[in-house]
């Protein structure tokens, strides 16, 4: 069956315009904050090159070297035209972690997830499946946990958005973040910010006391490393002390 690779990944390629206002060079953008939650042991490191800045530099190089046909197949100019057609709603102010961010020329297709990561550079929120199946992108909107990949940024003007960066920072961790550290609630760490956002939200939800009920309440967050037992221990500890 000609289940074409091109078609299947078309949605990924057509996201290019959202990034078009960023240069694909490993340059530190002035508004970029190095806010990835870094391992505590690295807290003393003063090098302010984030993992992201470093990797996106590598990405730019390999893109040029390796995937010319893909890049050639999607002229960046074409979607930009479409972007200018949708003048309405293209400037939006989002309130994130108590701060207002005015974003100009925002593509209506930009999800809240991509906007947080690519425009506001709050990269603690992770993109896993991009289809609401893994929970890595979990953030709070008006205090409730949601999948930021399934929502357009334009829909969130006036909302109070909280990301992992707004929950706590190294040196001033939220009790849930500290409990994840204490109980080793992760291995690779990719799902961790989503797990913690879910765990913080469930403190305010009518969830029962049993392990089964807590597991059920955390089931929207998938951990490929299988740190579930430790995650459960962390959540239970914070709930018992709340």
């Amino acid at each position, binding site marked *: 069956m000609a*289940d074409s690779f091109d078609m299947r990944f078309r*949605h990924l390629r057509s996201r290019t315009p959202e990034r078009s206002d960023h240069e694909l060079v490993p340059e530190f953008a002035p508004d970029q904050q190095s806010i990835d939650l870094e391992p505590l042991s690295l807290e003393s490191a003063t090098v302010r090159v984030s993992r992201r800045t470093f990797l996106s530099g590598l990405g730019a190089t390999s893109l040029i070297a390796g995937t010319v046909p893909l890049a050639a197949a999607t002229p960046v100019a074409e979607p930009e035209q479409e972007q200018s*057609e949708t003048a309405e709603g293209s400037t939006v102010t989002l309130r994130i972690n108590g701060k207002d961010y005015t974003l100009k020329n925002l593509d*209506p297709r930009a999800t809240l997830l991509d906007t947080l990561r690519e425009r506001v550079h709050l990269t603690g929120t992770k993109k896993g499946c991009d289809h*609401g199946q893994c929970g890595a992108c979990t953030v709070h909107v008006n205090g409730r946990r949601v999948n930021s990949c399934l929502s357009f940024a334009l829909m969130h003007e006036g909302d109070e958005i909280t990301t992992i960066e707004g929950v706590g920072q190294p040196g001033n961790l939220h009790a849930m973040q500290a409990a994840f550290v204490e109980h080793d609630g992760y291995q690779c760490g990719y799902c961790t910010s989503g797990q913690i956002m*879910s765990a913080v939200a*469930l403190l305010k939800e009518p969830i029962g006391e049993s392990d089964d009920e807590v597991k059920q309440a955390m089931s929207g967050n998938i951990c490929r490393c299988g740190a579930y037992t430790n995650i459960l221990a962390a959540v239970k500890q914070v709930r018992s002390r709340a």
Partner: protein
Amino acid sequence: METFNYVKAPNVEKALAGAQQAKFIAGGTTLVDLMKLHVETPKTLVDINLLPLDKIEKLPDGGLRIGAMVRNSDLAWNDDVKKAYPVLSEALLSGASPQLRNMATTGGNLLQRTRCMYFREPSAGTPGGYGCNKRTPGSGCAAIEGFNRIHAILGTSDKCIATHPSDMCVAMAALEAVIHVEGPKGKRTIAFADFHKLPGDTPHIENALEPGDLITYVDLPKPVEGAKSTYLKLRDRASYEFALSSAAIVARVEGGHIRYIRVTMGGVGTKPWRSHEAEAALMGKPANAATFKAAAEAALAKAKPHKDNAFKVELAKRCLVRSLKTATATA
């Protein structure tokens, strides 16, 4: 994703203006997903999140009015729903994840689209892609001869065997909800049983809505006095998974005999499936294992399994027997 115009509607009137060429977006949990897959390609999105349809109110006749924008989690945790319609609360909490339930709305869930993997394939219904009559009428159905473990065994046609995925709808079918719609032709109500359409020769037509129609409320009739209800969902894993078979039962037993019964099923039908056959086999009969078994046989008598989903026939029967036992237990 194809680009689109985005409009935020401040009220119902504004939402309806020009909506015929547009799609409404509420929680986005189905629509955004399917837009990324090129299944949905709306030219205009009308954001209805500001509409004042987010209340749950008691009706004078003892029923309950649910605004179309009420989120699944709010509906599931509502005290009136938990007390008077536990089957609905249980069904909602068995579906999706807490994050998705915080986003997904009552109106949106009525329009939830199938998880058929051929339907969800970006190129389905296009030349060179899988056949999908839901995507492109006349392009065929890849599921009928393909991998069809999750597909329907009731209400299918030779054009489509896609399963209706909603849990909420199964409970609402058992509760005989009424859907309120506002559109270009004014306001009207649609009985739950008439809302979802069988695929027949037109699987691309999934419900009774017409272009520009907006779901505004869902009314639940007054709870049946003395009745108990339950929702049982069977699936490949214990949570965050679609039903392979589910059942919603509303039953009243008096003197050991069944005096009121509604039987609906999920995971096995092309629409939220009400089994009048099972109800007929139960009504007036003693509430015991033999009756439940006979009802389950009646419910599945017309089942049409395919290559990979024959197991669903037995699974659905056992699902019915178990849930009937729970709903009619006297203790």
